[in-house]
Each structure stands twice: as C-alpha cells, then as structure tokens.
C-alpha cells in the first residue's frame, strides 16, 4: 500500500506542476486571432488547393478577415455557395462568379494519334516534355504521364489507360487550376462550367499546319476555319492554325461541333442528339442567355 501511495502522490504532484507551467506558457504565448478567421475557414472546402491565389484555405480566410472585403478573394472550388457563406460571416455581399471547370484540350487518344517513337525516360510529363516531343508526332498535345493527376487537389483527374488521356470528373473538379499549372504543355484550360453545366470547347492546341497536324493526329484541329464561319456569335477565332472558342461569346449552339471535320470540338453534358440528320436549326439551341452581369476572369492559357 505504501508503495502505491508513494508512486501516486509524486506523479500527481508532477502532473499538477507541469499543468501549471503549461497554463502560464499558453497564456504568455497566446496569439490573439480574430475568431472570424476560423469561421470563414469553416465555410471553405478545406482542400488547400491554392486556386484562390492564397496559401491554402487558411491563407484566404486570413486575407479576407484582415482586409475586410472580398475584392479579388474568391474560392473557385467552393464557388458561389461557399463565398456567400463567407460573405454572411463577414457581413458583406458576395460577388457572383461563374463556376469554373478544367477541360483537357487534347483528344489525341492512342487510336487517333499513333505513336512514332517509344519514350523510355522517367514517367512524368515534365521530363518527357523536356526530353523530346513525346512519343507521337504531335509536339503540342497531351503526353499522358499524369502530372495533372498529381496536381489535382480534389482527386478529380485520372489517366484513362486506353486512350492515354486524362479524364476529368467534372463533379469533383473545383476549377482551381492546379492541373493546368502542372501541365508542361498547357493542354488543360480552366473554363466556366457554362449554363446547365454544358460547354463547348476545342479539344486541340496543335499549332502545326493542317496537313501536318492531321498526319500526327486524326482528331487534330487543322485550322480550317469552318467553325468560325458557321458560328453565329463570332465566338470562334482561328489563330496559329488552332481554333479557340471564346466562352464569353459562346452560346453553346453546337453548330461548330457538327461542322468540325475532325471532331476536335467537344461538347460536354448535352443530351445525345437524335440520330436523324440535324435540322437547319437544331432544337437544342438555347435561347440567348441574358448577358452576364459579372466580368469573367480570363483564364485562357494562350500559348
């Protein structure tokens, strides 16, 4: 019994002494923080993707609380829902922005873009890009070693082994641009999700002349300009032998999709078209959307 007492008492005493020390240390070194920082952070997705331009969600929260406004502070992953919550915490009005999503501007799957050489180096896009022009004849397109997968903070990208191209899970994608930053070739572009999550984009960035691009890849944009001619909204420009759809002008009518001879223009999330030949005026054409009140940040990766 004595032993028990002699062990319990000193240990308890030690515990109490240490607790007192800790208490004072904590008091002395306490960092006063605005409690709103925690509240703001709680509204954010917590993926620390850096898409806002601040070091993680905490960084954005601190910036918001410190400056007391929301100018230039927008969480692309949480979108308007998260930002309105943040605004509520701060007693401000959130600026509505179009939700963004990443798209892969390359359709050169293995069957469309034949390999011309075998790449045998380290299996990362950055190194493959620095070594040579990749194992196909296209020096612009996706290399398929998945650097973008590593750059994704939401687990939204995976490489499809059959096509050799990355596939983006649009539901998971936060539009932070982490993947676009990782891609050494600028294949991935962050674009607005579009109305009803439907969007049209050119799935190719090959700047070679038509014949050469075609030789390298059957799905290449050959810069023929047919899409630009057919577009009723002048949303499409052809520069350096590549077409580009300006998402501020595009109304998702999909005339260009039908016109493209190589199928390089992708339309996402549209209901499947009827098998019958398209009528002169497709039914799917939505009514012209009301002009967007907000300025869409231009995330175009022009290279």
């Amino acid at each position, binding site marked *: 019994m004595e032993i028990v007492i002699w062990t319990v008492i000193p240990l308890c005493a030690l515990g109490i002494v240490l607790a007192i020390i800790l208490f004072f240390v904590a008091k002395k070194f306490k960092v006063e923080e605005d409690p709103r920082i925690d509240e703001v952070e709680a509204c954010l997705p917590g993926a620390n993707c850096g898409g806002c331009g601040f070091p993680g969600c905490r960084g954005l929260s601190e910036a918001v609380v410190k400056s007391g406004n929301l100018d230039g502070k927008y969480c692309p992953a949480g979108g308007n829902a998260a930002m309105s919550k943040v605004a509520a915490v701060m007693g401000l009005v959130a600026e509505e922005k179009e939700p963004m999503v990443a798209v892969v501007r390359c359709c050169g799957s293995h069957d469309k873009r034949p390999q*011309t050489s075998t790449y045998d180096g380290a299996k*990362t896009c*950055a190194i493959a890009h620095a*070594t040579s*022009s990749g194992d196909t004849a296209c*020096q612009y397109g996706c290399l398929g070693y998945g650097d973008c997968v590593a750059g994704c903070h939401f687990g939204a990208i995976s490489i499809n082994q059959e096509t050799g191209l990355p596939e983006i899970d649009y539901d998971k994608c936060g539009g932070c641009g982490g993947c676009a930053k990782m891609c050494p070739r600028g294949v991935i572009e962050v674009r607005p999700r579009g109305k009803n999550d439907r969007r049209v984009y050119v799935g190719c960035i090959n700047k070679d002349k038509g014949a050469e691009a075609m030789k390298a890849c059957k799905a290449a944009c050959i810069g023929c300009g047919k899409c630009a001619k057919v577009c009723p909204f002048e949303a499409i420009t052809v520069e350096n032998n590549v077409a580009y759809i300006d998402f501020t002008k595009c109304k998702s009518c999909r005339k260009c999709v039908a016109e493209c001879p190589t199928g390089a223009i992708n339309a996402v999330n549209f209901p499947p078209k009827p098998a019958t030949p398209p009528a002169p005026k497709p039914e799917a054409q939505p009514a012209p959307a009301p002009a967007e009140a907000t300025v869409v940040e231009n995330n175009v990766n022009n290279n």
Partner: protein
Amino acid sequence: MIPIAQHIGAPAEPVVAKGDTVKVGQLIAKSTGFVSANIHSSVSGTVAKIEKTIDTSGYKNTCIFINVEGDEWLETIDRTPDLKTEITMSAEEIRAKIAECGIVGTGGATFPAHVKLSVPQGKKCEHLIINGVECEPYLTADHRLMLEHTEEIMVGCKIIQKATGAEKIIIGIENNKPDAIAKMTEAAKKYGITVMPLKVKYPQGGEKQLIKATVNREIPAPPALPIDVGCVVQNVGSTFAIYEAVQKNKPLFERVVTVTGKSVKSPKNILARVGTPLSHLIAAVGGLPEDTGKVVNGGPMMGKAVKSLEVPVTKGTSGVLMFKQSESVRMEENACIRCGKCVSACCMGLEPYLLKNLAKIRDFDALKEERVLDCIECGSCSFTCPAGIPITDYIRYGKATVTKILRSKK
C-alpha cells in the same frame, strides 16, 4: 536543310530568302546577340524554303532548306591543303574572324567560340587548355582529328593564344590514345606546347574536370567561368575550326562526326557538312542495322536520342550512335536502396539521390540550396544506379526549372 539554332544562346536570324542562290560558305543566318553565332551555307544551290521542321530536340524549329546544285565555293575560301603557320592578324582581328565564321565549341555544348576567347577586363588568362579528351565513350572524332591534322591544331593553339594572351598552352589527351599523344607531343615541341596525358575517366572531357586534371584548379560554383581561375578551354575540333577560319577564311560548316554502333557494319569518322540528314551518314556506314532501337545524336552519356533519321547534322553533332534494340531499353525502375553509388559517382560532389527526390516533389528552393545548378548533367549517376532510376532525367528537369525561376526573378 540547315537549322538556325545550332548553338547555346539566341538563335540566328536568316538573311536569305526563298529563291536566293547561295554558295558554300556563304552567310545565311546572322547572329542576334552576344552569345550567338553566324551560320553559313554548307552547300551551293537555291534556298527552297525557310520552314519549321523537326530537329534533334524532337521539336520543330526553323530551318533553311537549300536545294543542292553543284558544289560552288565562295572564292574567299582557301581550299589548298597547305599549312599556313604564320599568324598575321591581331587579337581583335582574330576574334572578329572567329565570330564572323560562326565557330562554336564542337564538343557538344556548342558555346560560341568568340565569346569564350574574349577575356573580360581585369581577368587574365594564364592557361590555355586544349581539350583532346574525347568528351564521351565511343566517340573517336577528336582522336582522328589529332592524328590527321596535328600541325593545323598546333597553329590553331597559337592563334587562340594570341587572341587570349594565354601564357601557357596545355593539351590534355586521355592515355588510351598513345598514338595521338606521341604524334601531338612530337609536333608540340616546335610550338612550345605541353601535351599532358590524362587518366581515362568519364567525364574527363568536361571543362571543369579538365581544368582540375591539368592545372589542378577548381572552378567555383556557377556563374563562375573557367576564366575566373585563369583558364580558357577549347576543344581540338574547335581549335581546328579556328585554324581554318583564321588562316583559310573558311567558316564552320563541316565537322568530323563519329558514326558507330555495335551492329554497324563499318563504323567510321565522317567529315560531314552541317545540315546533312543523319540518314545519309548512316547510309555511309552500311545502313541502319536491322536491330536498331535507338539513334543518338552525340555521345552515349549526354547525346540526344532522335525521333527521326531526317534530322540534320549541326555544329555540335559529335557522333551518331546506333543502339541495338536490347541496349536501347532502359532497365526497369526499382526502389532506391540508398547505396550511395550516385554520390560517389558524382564528379561535382553533389548528392544526386537527394536532388532527384527534391525534383520529384518539386521543391525548387531546396534544389537550389543543394546546388543543383552545379550539375554538369554528365549522366554518371543514372549510369551507375543499380536500381535503374533515371536520376539524371529528374535532376535535369530540376535544374532547368530552377534556372527558369531564377531568370524570371531577375
């Protein structure tokens, strides 16, 4: 087909247009900056087009295509084989001539020679070191050159000495070439040049390693250059080219290329003109062997694997190697077993395993701290790695990115 980017630094600007007739040795692209070099036509004919086409890098770059018609040389070029030993030009004239003739380092790095030979104010060139060490295994181009053009190289040395004001000339030759050492030593006596046999060791031909081996000085970390330790290094190939430029008024448009490979019928050293497609050289040695799996422009340790055999010879093409299918496949990558072989192999005293890991996780600040910029990309670490990890690939990527970051900060 002549690419306009054949050297380190800014690419040259074409000065000919489609339809122009050119002669051998005529200037067709002009240097655009201090670190840049002129490019001359290697053939006579008409300019067919100036267009982007695939080159050694695997990417498309601007090239000047010339349809070959006859072989008409510029009259100013002295085509006699006579040896001219008398140096009449002044140091400035020599440098200007070298620049005009577009001489670059022919070892592979293709650094413009006139830049190297311009000794900056306040610095002194004590030693001129001529690199007779074959840059890489398999290559024998410099070896042949030393045997066949011994005297010319000696005169070339004297020319460079005049241009730089060097006190001493040392020619370093690896001691697996006794014939070259003997012949060069014999010839060097007349000119007061020292020939120094060196241990056979890769990368003995690296500029920094060569200075260490010959005069036992170590160049500090970049941006220090050989001149900071009082040395100027030139390759024997470049020395020969300088001789031809200064004494014979002949621009650099042809060079000796080693064409070899294990299953090549008759490996040769070929005097090839710049712009010749590799396929022509390969045809000259008996054609592409059946079992070729990889064709490399340059040496086995630092050369570039080419995507197409139509890429042209450039001023920096020291060799064309054909690897067998079995040789061209890298071994499977295993886990690093931390054996430290890469550390002991690194001639710059770096820790390749660490640099590789840092490059993999993209920690570029730490990479800079670990002195990734010191790396000379010799490839020894990848060569020695028992786990078959492409260490050099990662380090090269890391180094390139760090350089890019540093440039963007400036």
